């Protein structure tokens, strides 16, 4: 059977969708055939998630039609019919924090017994089994709000994959997962694919596309650009299709480390977080330091304690000789610390406010005097960031809630940079950011280091860490290794997992 002969599981034709003045989809379409794993890629704001919403019936397209297996899609109100066609992990969390983990997994499909009453005991048991299959170790009776970002993502994935649906959409499922998590997910996808399940997979990690996808569709600027088997589209061609320009992907970014006699600007001494993780290190002028580690290594806690978001149990942080007050964000800001927090939706953005207001929130001093704000100066600063960071928006007045996920991330980056930080702390800075923008963001890091500031990148993403002069590897709350630039990927991954390849 050739590619063209397989019946399409879903076909979307001529889809148009506008949000106010923004065109999210412009006569775009996609055809996914049975049994394939179909990648959908495109830059931030290209319209991928909007297409997902339309394919799952959450939004009705303005124009065009969607059909499943040759039959027209169900009416918008009939949620059950949609759910029979397609299961989905959305980019935006659909976890309900107030409900238990168990109930989230079986929302609206609770196990029922006599009289239609829910059998909680059976439901909890199924939930435990389901999560055990994903090696997610959580108490299913706790409210989902107590989960970590990664655990929450697994609950979403486990739920979507447990429907028994024949067609599953995954919108950036890997953005919040660490390496082991991703491989667990991919093993599962492969197993399901062997059973004939069809996937539509969205990711900004192109190597993931090459790893598990058969066919790739590229969107750009709300339009469909190309659909082709992955084998026929090499990495450069793929990026060219996404960006519309021939760019050579970042070559070797290796640059010599700062001179050993450069001044020490940041000193972290015996920092101990509330959960017991600890770190001590120093960083010199212009140095980019990576802080790497697996899911529960404590790297995020250390980062939060460092910038004042969480109150440390002990130790001290000094920036240019100034000791930061424990647990005080304003003091950290005053000392010149900039931050991109891990959970950008919770801590990074005020969605109703404009890009300009969000970007300048940490630097009221720069946009006016005596507590008065100059809107013109504020907009000028925001304009600068919109250009520098290539934020896709019609101007500084657009509310952040109207931006696509990746563009929101850039706004958070802008906010961290607005104060010309002496210490820039970036927690998973490129999660959910497209390849091109990733370069832009990392390029910004280069500029910041060029000005002599210290950058701390807290991530387990190898691409993020590659630009670091050295990487501190945390395992179980301790820094166990320091790796100078030029490490081999395998070594770093092994170190993060607490395995020392050289000595095994």
């Amino acid at each position, binding site marked *: 059977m050739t590619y063209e002969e397989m019946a399409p599981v879903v076909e979307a034709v001529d889809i148009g969708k506008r949000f106010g003045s923004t065109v999210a989809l412009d006569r775009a379409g996609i055809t996914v055939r049975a049994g394939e794993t179909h990648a959908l890629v495109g830059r931030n704001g290209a319209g991928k998630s909007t297409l997902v919403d339309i394919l799952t019936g959450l939004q009705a397209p303005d124009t065009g039609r969607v059909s499943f297996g040759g039959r027209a899609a169900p009416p918008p109100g009939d949620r059950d019919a949609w759910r029979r066609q397609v299961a989905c992990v959305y980019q935006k969390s659909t976890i309900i924090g107030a409900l238990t983990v168990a109930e989230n997994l079986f929302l609206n499909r609770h196990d029922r017994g006599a009289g239609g009453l829910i059998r909680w005991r059976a439901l909890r048991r199924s939930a435990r089994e389901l999560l055990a299959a994903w090696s997610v170790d959580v108490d299913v009776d706790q409210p989902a709000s107590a989960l970590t970002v990664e655990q929450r993502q697994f609950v979403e994935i486990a739920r979507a994959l447990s429907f028994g649906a024949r067609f599953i959409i995954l919108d950036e499922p890997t953005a919040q997962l660490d390496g082991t998590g991703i491989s667990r997910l991919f093993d599962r996808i492969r197993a399901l694919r062997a059973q004939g399940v069809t996937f539509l997979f969205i990711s900004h990690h192109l190597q993931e596309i090459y790893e598990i996808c058969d066919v790739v569709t590229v969107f750009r600027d709300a339009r469909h650009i190309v659909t082709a088997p992955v084998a026929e589209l090499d990495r450069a061609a793929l990026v060219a299709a996404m960006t519309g320009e021939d760019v050579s992907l970042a070559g070797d970014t290796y640059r010599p480390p700062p001179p050993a006699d450069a001044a020490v600007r940041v000193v972290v001494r015996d920092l101990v977080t509330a959960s017991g993780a600890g770190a001590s290190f120093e960083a010199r002028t212009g140095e980019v330091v990576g802080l790497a580690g697996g899911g529960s290594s404590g790297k995020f806690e250390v980062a939060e304690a460092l910038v004042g978001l969480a109150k440390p149990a002990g130790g001290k942080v000094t920036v240019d000789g100034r000791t930061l007050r424990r647990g005080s964000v304003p003091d950290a800001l005053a000392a010149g610390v900039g931050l991109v927090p891990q959970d950008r939706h919770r801590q990074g953005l005020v969605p109703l406010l404009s890009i300009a207001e969000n970007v300048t929130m940490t630097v009221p001093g720069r946009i006016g005097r005596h507590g008065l704000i100059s809107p013109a100066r504020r907009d000028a600063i925001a304009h600068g960031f919109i250009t520098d960071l290539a934020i896709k928006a019609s101007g500084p007045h657009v509310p952040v809630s109207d931006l696509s996920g990746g563009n929101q991330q850039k706004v958070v980056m802008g906010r961290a940079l607005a104060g010309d930080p002496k210490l820039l702390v970036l927690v998973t800075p490129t999660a959910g950011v497209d390849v091109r923008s990733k370069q832009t963001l990392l390029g910004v890091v280069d500029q910041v280091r060029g000005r002599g500031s210290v950058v701390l990148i807290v991530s387990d993403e190898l691409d993020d860490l590659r630009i670091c002069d050295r990487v501190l590897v945390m395992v179980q709350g301790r820094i166990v290794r320091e790796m100078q630039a030029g490490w081999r990927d395998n070594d770093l991954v092994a170190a993060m997992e*607490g395995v020392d390849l050289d000595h095994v």
Partner: protein
Amino acid sequence: MSDTLSSTTAAEAPPPPATRRIPALARLRDLALVPAIVTVAIVGYIVSPVFLRTDNIINVLQSMSEIAIVVLAETLVLITGKMDLSLESTFGLAPGIAAWLIVDPAVTHGLGLHAVPGALAIPLVLLTGALIGAFNGLLIVRFGLNGFIVTLGMLIVLRGLLTGISGGKTFFALPESMTYLGSASWLAVPASIWISLILFAVAVVVLGYTRAGRSLYAIGGNADAARAAGVRTDRVVWLTLVVAGTLAALAGLLISGRLASVTAAQGDGAIFQVFAAAVIGGVSLNGGKGTVFGAFTGVLLLFLIINVLTLAGVPAQWTNFLNGAVILVALVVSRVTGGKAQT
């Protein structure tokens, strides 16, 4: 980076034994008001031994029964993340409309139309409540208006409508069908107590053990997520508003029966007490959180306090002050026992 994926060999830390701590706490949260209730009971007994006598307890339960049903209605609406202020007006208007259509102007000095036979009273009351709920739903769900302000407007309109049809006067000489439920006793206990307890019991089962009930929590917790999970959010919210209106109408019928009349001010100002009871009972105004049982303990606590203050013969000018102060103290107590910041 694909190597990242292949080298994941280290075993996960073994999962800790699935502890039962959290649900126990959740259940405890339901019981958060019990210490406060016990304290009030002890204080009440010290103030006056009458407090624990059966007839006084029945008195408290009866006087709270109608408001308790409104609290139940409001709790359902709050769990979905909406609000319905107009319940206090429905409480008066629904029996008011029935009385207006039924009572004989010859008996009541010109009030009423005598257009409908008395036997239709109960369906008429409930239908009025349901229609009001449906109209609220129309404005909130279909037109996307803000629920708080829609129902605030409706509160005023419905109260005004009752004043309008009654000319501010009181409907009396109600038919037996309207007074029976509110005044009858079953097994030596007033029917309204039975009715309210049964309604609460049914609500506990529906909200805890049916998909429909759980979908209220899902909508209140995150409406988008609920929709994504296949809940017909609009329909459920609408239905909840209709049920709430019907419950408030039933509560109004009970009190009209107890008082054998419908005043133009019936229910006036009751919504404050209703919200206080629900929130003290642990229901969140942001939706998705709280239980029917908790709401019940909230009403019970408030009415016990009022009863104790009455028995204590607090000076008239200071009753309100003490009443409010005790609510605040109850709040602080439930905060301390509950342990979590309230939302």
